[in-house]
C-alpha cells in the first residue's frame, strides 16, 4: 500500500520523460500518450531488433500482433546468429553506436561488459517506464539487469540448472536416477551405465572448440553458490569450490564417462540423435532443443534438477538469463522499448514463446498459464514446467559474470582442456588460471 503513491509517481515521471523524448525527435504529441497501459503507445518509428535463431523466430511471430497494437511502429526482427551477434554488437558499440540495432538481445554473459565498458551504449530504461515491471520477474533478475540505480534491459528468459537424462538407458542399467543425491552418486551410476549399456554418461567439448564448453563446470560452481568472480569482482577460481567442481569433472573423465564433443554444438546435437550419451546437464532451455532434435526419442527422456555437489547441498540455481536492451544511440528508443515491453512483460507473449521454443520466461505471471503445468509427452509425462518453476521460485545465487567474463571463460576452458586432454591436476591448473586472469585484468585473486 505504501508503495502505491511512489509507483504512481514513477509512472508519471516515466510518462513525462517519455513525452519529452518523443517531442525531441518530433515523433508525436506528448499529450496523446495515454495515462495507462504500455508507456510507448504513441511511439512511432522503424525498429530493428537483433536476436538469434529460436528467439528471433518467436519475436517475428509476435510482430503482427504488436503492429496492430502500435500502428505507428514497424518492426524488423533480424536473426544475426549466435555467437556472431556479440561481435556485431561490440563492433557497433566501439564505433559509438553506429549501425547497431535498436533492440538488442543480450545474454547475461555479455550484459555486464556492455554496461561497464561502453557507458551510454545501452539506454537506461527507467525514463521509458521500466521501473513498473521491477517486481514482475524471478528473484535476482532485476539485480542482474540493473547497475548503479539504472536499468539497462528487461529480463527475458531465466534458465535454471537442469539434468536431462535418457530414462530408458538408465532403466536398462538398473539405475534410479531420481534417487541420485550427489555427483558422487552420478559418477557411480555412470560407471554402471557404461558397463551395462556401453553408453557414456555425458559429453564435454574437451578441446574447447566452442566457447560454451565450461557449462558443466559453471553449473557445479553455481550449485555451490560460487562462480569465477565474487560480488566484489575478485577472482574466485582458486577456491575449494572451484577445485571441487573441476575434480568432479576429472573423475568423470578418468572413469571414461565423458564423450568428447569437439566441434561443439553440431557434435552435441548429433550425439543426442545417435543416443551416444545419456545425460545432458543443461538448463531449462535445452529441453526444447532435445525435443526438436530427436522427436523420435519421445518418452525416452526425463528431467530432474541436478544432484547436489555435496550431501544436502543446493540443487537449484538460475544459471543464466537473456534480456532485451535498447541501444543508447537508437533514434527510436520509445518505440524500441515498446516492443521489448510487449514481448517481455505480457504473459501472452511469453506463453506463446514457451509453446514455440520452450524458452522459459523470467516473467513470473506467465507461469499461471496451464502450459507450464501440463504433463509433457516427450518427457515421459513429467510436468517439466513445474520442475523448473520450483527451482526458479527459490532464492537464487546472483551470479556476477562481471565485465571480464569472456577472458575468465577463456582461461577456464583452457584449464579444463588441460585436465581432460592431458590429465592435469585441477588445483594446479586453476591456480595458474587465476593468476593469468589476475595478470590480464588487474583483479585480485581470493584464495
Amino acid at each position, binding site marked *: 500500500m505504501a508503495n502505491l503513491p511512489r509507483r504512481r509517481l514513477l509512472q508519471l515521471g516515466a510518462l513525462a520523460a517519455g513525452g519529452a523524448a518523443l517531442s525531441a525527435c518530433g515523433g508525436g504529441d506528448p499529450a496523446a500518450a495515454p495515462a495507462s497501459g504500455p508507456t510507448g503507445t504513441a511511439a512511432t518509428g522503424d525498429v530493428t531488433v537483433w536476436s538469434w535463431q529460436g528467439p528471433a523466430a518467436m519475436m517475428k511471430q509476435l510482430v503482427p500482433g504488436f503492429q496492430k497494437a502500435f500502428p505507428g511502429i514497424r518492426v524488423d526482427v533480424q536473426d544475426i546468429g549466435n555467437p556472431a551477434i556479440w561481435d556485431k554488437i561490440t563492433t557497433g558499440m*566501439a564505433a559509438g553506436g553506429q549501425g547497431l540495432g535498436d533492440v538488442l538481445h543480450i545474454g547475461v554473459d555479455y550484459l555486464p561488459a556492455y554496461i561497464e565498458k561502453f557507458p551510454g551504449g545501452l539506454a537506461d530504461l527507467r525514463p521509458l517506464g521500466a521501473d513498473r515491471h521491477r517486481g514482475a520477474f524471478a528473484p535476482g533478475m532485476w539485480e542482474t539487469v540493473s547497475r548503479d540505480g539504472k536499468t539497462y534491459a528487461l529480463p527475458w528468459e531465466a534458465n535454471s540448472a537442469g539434468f536431462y537424462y535418457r530414462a530408458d538407458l538408465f532403466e536398462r542399467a538398473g539405475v534410479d536416477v531420481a534417487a541420485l543425491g550427489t555427483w558422487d552418486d552420478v559418477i557411480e551410476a555412470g560407471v554402471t551405465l557404461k558397463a551395462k549399456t556401453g553408453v557414456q554418461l555425458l559429453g564435454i567439448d574437451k578441446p574447447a572448440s566452442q566457447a560454451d564448453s565450461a557449462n558443466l563446470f559453471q553449473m557445479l560452481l553455481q550449485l555451490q553458490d560460487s562462480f569465477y568472480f565474487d560480488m566484489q569482482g575478485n577472482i574466485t577460481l582458486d577456491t575449494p569450490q572451484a577445485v571441487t567442481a573441476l575434480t568432479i569433472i576429472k573423475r568423470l573423465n578418468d572413469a571414461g564417462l565423458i564423450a568428447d564433443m569437439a566441434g561443439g554444438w553440431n557434435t552435441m546435437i548429433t550425439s543426442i540423435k545417435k543416443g551416444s550419451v545419456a545425460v545432458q546437464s543443461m538448463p531449462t532451455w535445452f529441453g526444447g532443443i532435445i525435443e526438436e532434435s530427436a522427436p523420435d526419442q519421445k518418452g525416452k527422456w526425463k528431467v530432474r534438477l541436478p544432484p547436489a555437489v555435496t550431501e544436502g547441498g543446493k540443487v537449484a540455481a538460475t544459471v543464466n538469463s537473456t534480456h532485451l536492451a535498447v541501444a543508447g544511440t537508437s533514434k527510436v528508443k520509445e518505440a524500441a522499448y515498446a516492443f521489448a515491453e510487449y514481448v517481455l512483460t505480457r504473459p501472452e507473449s511469453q506463453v506463446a514463446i514457451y509453446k514455440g521454443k520452450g524458452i522459459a520466461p523470467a516473467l513470473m505471471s506467465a507461469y499461471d498459464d496451464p502450459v507450464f503445468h501440463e504433463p509433457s509427452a516427450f518427457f515421459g509425462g513429467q510436468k517439466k514446467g513445474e520442475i523448473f518453476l520450483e527451482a526458479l521460485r527459490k532464492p537464487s545465487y546472483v551470479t556476477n559474470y562481471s565485465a571480464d567474463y569472456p577472458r575468465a571463460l577463456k582461461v577456464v576452458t583452457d584449464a579444463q*582442456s588441460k585436465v581432460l*586432454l592431458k590429465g592435469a591436476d585441477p588445483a594446479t591448473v586453476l591456480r595458474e588460471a587465476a593468476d593469468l586472469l589476475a*595478470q590480464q585484468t588487474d583483479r585480485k585473486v581470493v584464495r
Partner: protein
Amino acid sequence: MTALVERAGAPPAHRAPSRRGWTGARLAPYLFVGPALLLFAVFKLYPIAWSFWLSLFKTDGALQTFAGAANYRRLVADPLFWSALGNTVTILLVQVPLMLALAIALAVALNSPLLAVKGFVRLGFFMPMVTGLVAYGLLFAVLLNPQSGLVNWALGLAGVGPVPWLTHGLWAKVAVGLALTWHYTGYNAVIYLARLQALPADHYDAAAVDGAGAWQRFRHVTLPGLRPVMLLTIVMSTIGTLQLFDEPYVMTGGGPDNSTMTLGLYLYANGFKFFDFGYASAIAYALTVIIGILGVVQFKVLGERS
C-alpha cells in the same frame, strides 16, 4: 582572356607551357593518383596511425586512459602472447618451407612437356586458392573431425587408429598446416610456373651440352632462375603466416589449450572478445615490427646475390 593577352605579349615558348602546366599537364598526375591516395589515407593510413595512438592507451571498451608504454610492457610479460608467437613461428618454420618445396616440385611437373591436359591440371591445383577462407576452414574441420570425419574413417580402413586431429595440441597444428598447404601450394606453384616459363631455353640447352643430367639442370639452372620469385613467395608466405587468422579461427578456435593460438587470433580475442582495443593495437604493432624485421632479413639474405 588573360592567357591570351600574356601569350601575345611575352615570349611564348617559355611562359605558356609552364603556366598551362600547373593547371593542366603538371597537375594531371596528382589528380589521377588523388583518389587512390585519398582512399589509402582514409582506409589504411588513418587506421594504422590511429591504432598506434590507441596502443598507448589502457582501454576498457569505450573507456580510455593514457598509459604510455604500459601495453607493450604487459605484452612482454604475457605468457599467452609468447605462446601465440611461438605457435606462429613454428608454423612458419615448418609449414612454409615444406609448402614452397612442394610448390616448386609441382611447378616443375606442371611445366613438363610430357603433361597432358595442362590447363585442366593447373586449374585443379590453383582452385583451392579461390575457395573462401572460412569455407575451406569449415571443410577441413568437418573432414578432420576426430569422430565423424572422412579422414579418420579412411585411416581406419587402412588400419590406422583414429588421429586426434583438432583435439591434440600437436595434431591440431598439423591440421592447420595441412589446410594451409592445401590452400596455398597451388598459388605458389603458379607463381613459380610463370617464372619457369620465362627462363630462357638456351640455358638448359647449354647445360645439356655440358653433360648435366636432369637433377643437375634443376639444381644449377632452375633453382637459380627461380631465386627472385622465391624471395617473393617467401616474403609473402611469411607475412601471410604471421597474420594467420581464418584457418585456426574456424578449425580450432586457437585450441586446444592455445596450441593453435596465433598472433592474429590473440589480437582478435583481445579486441573483439575482451574489448581491450589498446592491448590489441599493441599486439598489432608488435606483429608489424616482427614482420618488418623478418622482411628486411629475407631481402638481405636472398635478394642481394640475384
